[in-house]
């Protein structure tokens, strides 16, 4: 976690997907301080989105940040993603859904609360290997 699901009305080139994944990861980490090894991005293509919407981003993020922080994060996503995709921000939907960290297990460990990542052995080991 977080898990960002990017739903696209149509297919986009692979290099754009790579860039989008990088941008989402960078924005999430710069706003929340979370390590990059937390950030998952999945693309779903050819989705029949609401009229006028080209991209829908649903972020499943850990609960515990302020409403203002999430608002700023959403705003930044709106600006930067629409710029990268060269679409009007109005043609993009972005929402965050918060999940308590203690309901999720990664690397065989229950996720730490936001800000307590230092206590997570799996993260300190770089999320690689056994």
């Amino acid at each position, binding site marked *: 976690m977080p898990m960002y699901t990017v739903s696209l009305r149509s297919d986009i080139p692979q290099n754009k997907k790579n860039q989008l994944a990088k941008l989402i990861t960078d924005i999430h980490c710069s706003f929340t301080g979370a390590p990059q090894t937390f950030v998952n991005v999945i693309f779903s293509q050819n989705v029949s989105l*609401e009229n006028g919407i080209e991209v829908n981003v649903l972020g499943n993020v850990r609960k515990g940040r302020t409403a203002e922080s999430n608002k700023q994060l959403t705003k930044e996503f709106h600006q930067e993603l629409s710029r990268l995709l060269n679409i009007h921000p109005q043609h993009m939907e972005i929402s965050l859904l918060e999940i308590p960290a203690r309901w999720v*297990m990664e690397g065989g460990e229950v996720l730490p609360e936001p800000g307590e990542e230092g206590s997570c052995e799996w993260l300190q080991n770089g999320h690689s290997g056994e």
Partner: protein
Amino acid sequence: MKNRIRVIGTVQDGAIEDEVIKRLQLVIGETYCRYFGGNHHLTFIWLTIPRGQAFLAAKPSTTSVLQLPVQDLLADHIRHDFMSEVSAQWQKNTGCSKNEIILSCPDASYAKHYFDKVNGRFNASTKVFIQIKLLLRLMIGKLKKGYLNTSINF
């Protein structure tokens, strides 16, 4: 009447063999009933992600995700014991590392809210058509592979 639990598994296309997925359904279903009682029926829905569409830390990902709802307000120590056991079963059966499985066991009410949010993406005027199409694809997937599955793409 059994309490139906909708389980969503998201896996990389071709990463886990069909027989392993069927075994996972069985093992996880048994564990669920052992923890929470035999009056539950788990319906697994498997979404496959084509290569190049999943990223972790902005790099190609091999991670699978399993959303396995539990009863609302379940005590943390029971939830965590259950999660540890399911995570271990996943690793044992798939041969993947502990870093390749993200397991979420949310309250059932949260899982429903999440599902509604995912469904909320769809064009309202074609939502029923999309849901029928999805159902058909899942059934075709079951006929082909023996379990409910379809691509994350439409």
